[in-house]
C-alpha cells in the first residue's frame, strides 16, 4: 500500500501555505499525518498537492491570552499531554488526550489535525465542543473566528473552505474548582471511542449546579452537546434521580446507525457512561469546594 503521486510542498510560513492552498485545487494539508497517511497509503485519497505544514513554527504552541488558553493548531498531542498549563487550566483536555491513540501517534498527531478531520469518535473535537472552543481560521483573504458548534457541520465536514487553514484553538478555562470528567468506551485502549462523555461542572456551596456542559462523542455525526439536559440540571442538586433523568434522554438521540454499531447501542452506552462521568466530575468539584 503505497501513496499515489502528488506535488509536495513544505512552506515555512503561514502566508506561503495559504498561497499554495489558495492557488491549487485538490490539495490536502499534511499535519500530524496519523489520519491522512493511512488514507494515502490505502489510496483512498489522491490529492494533486500535499501541503506539509509541519515546518511552520507559528502554528504550534500553547499560551495564555487574556485569561484564555490558545493552542496552535499544529501543537502535538504529546505537548498537550505534558503541558502543566493545560493540566492546571484545562484538565478535561488533559484527561481526554491520554485516551487519544497511543504514545506513538500522539507524538506526531496534532490537535488541529484531529479537529479538522472531525471523526465522530475523536476525543479532541468532543472536548472542543464541550468547552465551546473558538477556532481561528486563516486564508489569503484574512482571518475569521468560528465557534466550534458552527465549525462542525456534519459527518467529517467542517466549515473550512478549501483555501483555509485552521491556525489556533482558543478555550476559555472554567473557573478554578470546577469538576470535570472525560470517559469513553472503546474496544481496546487507544481505539476511537464508540461513545465518549465529557462533563464539566461548577457547583455552589450547597452542591447545586451553577454551570454544566454535557457532551457526547461517537454518538452523532458531530459531538453532541446535551443542551436541554444542561438547562434542566441548572440550579439542581445532582441526585441520582436528576442524573437518571438526564441519562434517560439518551434514548431519544438521533444517533449514528450502522450494521456494526446500531443506534440503540450507542444510546445505551451513552446512558451508561453519562451518570458515571457526572459522578466523577461531581466528586472532583466537591473536592475543590473550599476554593470558591
Amino acid at each position, binding site marked *: 500500500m503505497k501513496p499515489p503521486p502528488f506535488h509536495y510542498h513544505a512552506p515555512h510560513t503561514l502566508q506561503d501555505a495559504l498561497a499554495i492552498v489558495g492557488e491549487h485545487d485538490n490539495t490536502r494539508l499534511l499535519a500530524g499525518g496519523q489520519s491522512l497517511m493511512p488514507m494515502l497509503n490505502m489510496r483512498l485519497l489522491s490529492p494533486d498537492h500535499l501541503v506539509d505544514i509541519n515546518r511552520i513554527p507559528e502554528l504550534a504552541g500553547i499560551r495564555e491570552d487574556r485569561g484564555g488558553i490558545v493552542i496552535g493548531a499544529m501543537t502535538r498531542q504529546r505537548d498537550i499531554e505534558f503541558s502543566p498549563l493545560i493540566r492546571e487550566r484545562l484538565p478535561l483536555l488533559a484527561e481526554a488526550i491520554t485516551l487519544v491513540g497511543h504514545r*506513538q501517534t500522539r507524538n506526531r498527531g496534532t490537535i488541529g489535525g484531529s479537529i479538522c478531520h472531525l471523526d465522530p469518535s475523536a476525543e479532541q473535537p468532543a472536548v472542543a465542543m464541550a468547552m465551546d472552543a473558538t477556532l481561528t481560521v486563516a486564508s489569503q483573504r484574512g482571518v475569521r473566528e468560528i465557534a466550534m458548534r458552527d465549525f462542525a457541520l456534519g459527518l467529517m465536514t467542517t466549515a473550512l473552505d478549501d483555501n483555509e487553514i485552521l491556525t489556533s484553538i482558543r478555550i476559555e478555562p472554567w473557573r478554578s474548582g470546577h469538576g470535570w470528567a472525560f470517559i469513553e468506551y472503546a474496544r481496546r485502549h487507544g481505539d476511537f471511542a464508540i461513545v465518549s462523555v465529557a462533563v464539566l461542572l461548577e457547583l455552589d456551596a450547597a452542591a447545586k449546579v451553577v454551570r454544566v456542559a454535557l457532551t457526547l462523542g461517537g454518538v452523532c455525526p458531530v459531538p453532541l452537546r446535551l443542551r436541554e439536559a444542561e438547562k434542566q440540571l441548572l440550579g439542581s442538586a445532582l441526585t441520582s434521580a436528576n442524573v437518571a433523568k438526564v441519562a434517560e434522554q439518551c434514548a431519544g438521540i438521533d444517533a449514528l446507525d450502522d450494521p456494526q454499531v446500531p443506534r440503540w447501542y450507542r444510546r445505551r452506552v451513552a446512558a451508561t457512561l453519562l451518570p458515571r462521568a457526572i459522578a466523577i466530575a461531581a466528586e472532583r468539584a466537591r473536592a475543590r469546594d473550599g476554593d470558591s
Partner: protein
Amino acid sequence: MNGGEKMISVTVNGQAFTRPVSSRRLLADFLRHDLALTGTHLGCEHGVCGACTVLVDGVSARSCLMLAVQANGCKINTVEGLAPDSGDGEAMHPLQEAFWSRHGLQCGFCTAGILMSLVELLRDVEAPTEEQVRLVLSGHLCRCTGYQNIVAAALEAARSMSAQAR
C-alpha cells in the same frame, strides 16, 4: 511522474546521509531500502501494528506514516543503533539483553518497533509500572508472544538500567 525528487539529509543512528527521494516515498521504505537498514519492518502500512516504529528527534513515530521528505534535517534512531559500540560487536543494549533472557521475542518481526518504543519509555520513566509498560505496548501488535514476556523483559531492563545508572 513519481511526485518529484527532493534531496534530504538525515542522521540515522548518529551517521549522516544525504540522498534523493521521491516525495511520496515512505520513511520506512527509505530506511529499509535506500539506507539498507532492514531492521525496522512493515506490518500494516496504516499505522496500527507498530512494527515500523523508530525514534524521530528522540520520540517514537510510525515510519509508515511519515514521508521520507518529512525527515529532512531530523535525527532518527532505529534498532540497528541500539547496541553500544564495542570492540567485539557483541554487547547489546540492556533492553536487548532482557528480551533475550526473558524470551521476549518469538518470530522477531514486531520486535524492533517495540524496542524503540521501550527505549523512549525507559528514558522518560526510570521505574515504570507494569501498567505503564502495557500502555506503551498497546501501540504494538504481536501475534506470537501474548505480550507477557515482553512486559517482563521491559521491567527487567528498567531495573538493570536503573542499577547501572547508580
